[in-house]
């Protein structure tokens, strides 16, 4: 069986196309399987105007169905050997004669059964329903209605091509009936084009100026932008996301170069790139060594027009207007002093109850300085961090950032440099929003890390402090993302910082303006550790993560270190028995030690068995070893030292009853176990590990 199916649409949003194609394939295969039809080899591809699927080698017929179906209980179906209405109804429903019914024995008793046979139907009979079903099930980020119809789709559906082995499969959606025709490029080959098979479909589209396959369009774009850039002596500024987007904005990728006036090169590189990219989707061109931009860009367009120069001229006019705007804003911005901008931040509301951006700058400045001190940075670096944080938001009142919000931070860096600020200060301003997402790098210097941490912690602590706590449905200020940023930065820092201390520093910065914030440090720390939990689940199994977080440690690099060590060593064969032994320790303490004073020293004089003596000795040795290993942050070594305790722990449980009758002996043993628990907790609560 050979099938060609194409949904012809008005231009779909670029980002919808690929996910829709994948979903279409999955929906088709699933529907086939449900219909006992081998789907065969399913291929999909699409453009802004079409979602296409073609199938080769699919089954021509459904598989036959043969199965036993049970009906009513035997004593209801037959009275005195004669079939009742229930038996007749069941037989009728299954399409068999009453005489063919028989009895089966099940757990619940005797039942009447029928053996049914359903001959597989031709695929062509099943396809209308299968294909029609796809329309309703395809899911888009946003859908719409059109005309007088009630159906929804990403954009209006204008034709449906559905041909199976040369015959049209009748399908209807939103008043559009399927046919045996496709359409080519919107302007080059708009007329209907007959299709009877896969080969004809693919060849026909190529002839009709449509490159159906998105990967092929991407390749063409990559090759042609490289070629065009080379022709002007440069290379394209790499931008895979833009290539991907543009490949899904056209059916036929064509390229033309625009050369713009060199005078615009005075603008910062990011401004030029944003002007070309964000509104126009042009590819910027730079020198082959990447040292600077060249005054040129490459445009991908969709129609093989009579004279490409006309397209180039039109695009250049638009680009010039954009660059003129950018240059106008840049020059205006350079005329404003940093101090005046700082002043202007007073009238920029950030988050209502948290005051203005000017207030935020002041808090961030003291916080960044505090973090720098906690990291043990020298005075110069501390001052740079404070200064950068103070100036970090000034670009928000610049005209360029008003025009290109994406350039916040970047413009701050440029204005700082122009104003003669230190390189380190400018860089920290430029990196304050890092990491914005999981793919982004963390700040590249310690000074920049201080500012980036202050930027995020001030927001988290402030929102929590006025009761604006994010929940599962709303997080309007992106606090979860900020929290992940904080945790990633901390993980990379050389000096470990405890979350509790950091949160306290951030809350202190609010003292002058807000007095005491609502809520507690612990609430914020819990929010952060919950995020940490989710972050860690990407690296290790739940039980390992829980075991480490159960210790209450909030120094992020050490949490990572413990998890890595535990995740590795838990596979050793002596680990599982140790975990079991430790679980016993924890359980006994939980159940039996209530009201017992566990703080006191263990008294060797009360030992009654050699195994107690041995465990106590091993425990003291481990404790000492752990001290120096902890100083060296050698989590693996610590865990190995704990594994050494397995023998003595086992021997202890074999040798003595913890709950001895003599109270002094009993308390002494519980204290020994408490000592063990506390040294294990320096690494992880391994009783939670499944082994």
């Amino acid at each position: 069986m050979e099938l060609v199916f194409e949904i012809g649409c008005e231009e779909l949003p670029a980002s919808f196309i690929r996910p829709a194609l994948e979903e279409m394939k999955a929906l088709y295969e699933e529907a086939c399987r449900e219909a006992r039809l081998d789907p065969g080899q399913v291929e999909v591809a699409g453009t802004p105007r079409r979602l296409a699927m073609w199938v080769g080698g699919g089954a021509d017929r459904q598989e036959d169905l043969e199965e036993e179906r049970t009906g009513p209980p035997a004593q209801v179906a037959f009275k005195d050997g004669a079939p009742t209405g229930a038996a007749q109804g069941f037989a009728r429903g299954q399409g068999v004669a009453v005489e063919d019914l028989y009895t089966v024995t099940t757990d619940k008793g005797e039942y009447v059964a029928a053996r049914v046979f359903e001959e597989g139907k031709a695929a062509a009979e099943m396809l209308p329903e299968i294909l029609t079903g796809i329309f309703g099930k395809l899911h888009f980020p946003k859908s719409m209605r059109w005309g007088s119809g009630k159906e929804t789709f990403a954009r209006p559906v204008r034709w449906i091509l559905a041909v199976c082995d040369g015959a049209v499969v009748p399908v209807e959606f939103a008043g559009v009936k399927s046919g045996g025709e496709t359409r080519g490029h919107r302007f080059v080959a708009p007329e209907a084009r007959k299709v009877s098979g896969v080969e004809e479909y693919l060849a026909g589209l190529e002839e009709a100026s449509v490159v159906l396959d998105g990967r092929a369009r991407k390749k063409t774009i990559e090759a042609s932008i490289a070629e065009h850039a080379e022709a002007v002596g440069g290379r394209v500024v790499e931008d895979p996301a833009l290539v991907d987007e543009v490949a899904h904005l056209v059916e036929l990728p064509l390229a033309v170069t625009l050369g713009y006036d060199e005078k615009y090169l005075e603008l910062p590189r990011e401004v030029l790139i944003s002007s070309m990219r964000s509104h126009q989707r042009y590819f910027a061109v730079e020198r082959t060594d990447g040292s600077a931009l060249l005054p040129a860009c490459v445009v991908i367009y969709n129609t093989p027009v009579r004279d490409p120069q006309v397209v180039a001229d039109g695009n250049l006019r638009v680009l010039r207007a954009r660059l003129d705007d950018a240059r106008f804003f840049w020059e205006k911005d350079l005329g404003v002093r940093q101090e005046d901008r700082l002043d202007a931040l007073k009238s920029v509301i950030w988050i209502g109850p948290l005051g203005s951006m000017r207030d935020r700058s002041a808090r961030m400045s003291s916080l960044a300085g505090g973090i720098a001190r906690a990291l043990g940075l020298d005075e110069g670096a501390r001052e740079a961090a404070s200064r950068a944080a103070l100036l970090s938001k000034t670009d928000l009142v610049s005209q360029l950032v008003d025009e290109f919000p994406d350039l916040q931070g970047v413009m701050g860096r440029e204005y700082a440099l122009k104003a003669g600020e230190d390189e380190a200060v400018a860089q920290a301003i430029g990196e304050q929003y890092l990491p914005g997402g999981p793919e982004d790098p963390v700040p590249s210097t310690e000074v920049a890390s201080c500012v980036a941490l202050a930027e995020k912690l001030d927001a988290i602590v402030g929102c929590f402090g006025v009761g604006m706590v994010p929940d599962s449905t709303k997080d309007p200020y992106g606090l979860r993302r900020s929290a992940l940023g904080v945790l990633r930065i901390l993980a990379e820092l050389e000096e470990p910082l405890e979350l509790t201390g950091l949160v306290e520093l951030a809350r202190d910065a609010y003292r002058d303006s807000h007095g005491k914030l609502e809520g507690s440090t612990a609430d914020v720390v819990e929010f952060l550790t919950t995020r940490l939990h989710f972050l860690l689940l990407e690296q290790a199994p739940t039980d390992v993560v829980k075991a480490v977080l159960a210790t209450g440690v909030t120094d992020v690099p050490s949490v990572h270190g413990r998890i890595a060590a535990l995740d590795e060593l838990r596979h050793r064969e002596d680990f599982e028995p140790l975990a079991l032994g430790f679980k016993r320790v924890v359980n006994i303490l939980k159940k039996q030690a209530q009201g017992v004073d566990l703080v006191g020293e263990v008294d060797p004089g009360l030992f009654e068995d050699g195994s107690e003596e041995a465990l106590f000795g091993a425990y003291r040795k481990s404790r000492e070893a752990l001290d120096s290993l902890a100083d060296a942050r050698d989590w693996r070594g610590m865990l190995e030292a704990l594994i050494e305790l397995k023998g003595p722990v086992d021997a202890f449980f074999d040798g003595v009853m913890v709950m001895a009758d003599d109270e002094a002996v009993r308390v002494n043993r519980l204290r020994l176990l408490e000592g063990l628990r506390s040294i294990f907790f320096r690494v992880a609560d391994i009783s939670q590990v499944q082994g």
Partner: protein
Amino acid sequence: MAAKTFQEMILRLQNFWADRGCVIQQPWDVEKGAGTYNAATFLRALGPEPWNVAYVEPCRRPTDGRYGENPNRLGSYYQFQVLLKPGPDDVLDLYWESMKAIGIDPMDHDLRLVEDDWEQPTLGAWGLGWEVWVDGMEATQFTYFQQVGGIELDPIPAEITYGLERIAMFLQDVDNVYDLVWAPGVTYGQIRHQEEVEFSHFHFEDADVDHHLRWFEDYEANARELMGKGLVLPAYDFIMKASHTFNVLDARGAISVTERQKYIGRIRGLSRGIAKAYLGKREELGFPLLPTT
């Protein structure tokens, strides 16, 4: 053949859409920010009555004024607005033909539909559609309205909004809007420059803040009172006046960020009220534009 003057371009668009069965309506005589506010679009989009209309609409955007000094930005300008309800199946082909009619041939230029979803919070309205690019220039906003005044639409209208100055600059190959030829021998600048300069001064410096703040309150109160009396269209005028007054205050820098949200909320409330009232009134009148069967 490209339309040589601004007015010829408008005339060709009018004739084109008149030939395709549109009512050629006129601007609504109250200040407004976009052609969508004209009752011929905002109110007529509601309900089951079929409606095809085209008209030029002068639009005022006080914050975009540049004292007549910027070659591309204007504090007021013209849109050519088409509303087809329901949008016919070949609506895009009709649009391409209209572009041909003013001299933009799809085999000479790169015409593209780029995703652009439209939302107007003050109108409680949203739709999906595109910006139409002509050689990289945004020439038209094309939207399938889904909701207006908070009410789901049925049938769905297609709205086509041509940015007249931009398209004319493209056709006439000029880089400064004031250099456009409006009519033979008369430029856009000769007709509109003084207005841009004076209104920029007015909106940014001289508009009396206290008066405008008071007017906003009065317009809002009037709109509510009239709505209560079932005088839907007079009420709608007052909503537009309130909305424009807000825009002037905004340009004047008289509205803080927090207040801004409150004002927008108040206008949205009015828009929702009027949409409901209008629909009720049309139903009462028996939806006069529905074809008689």
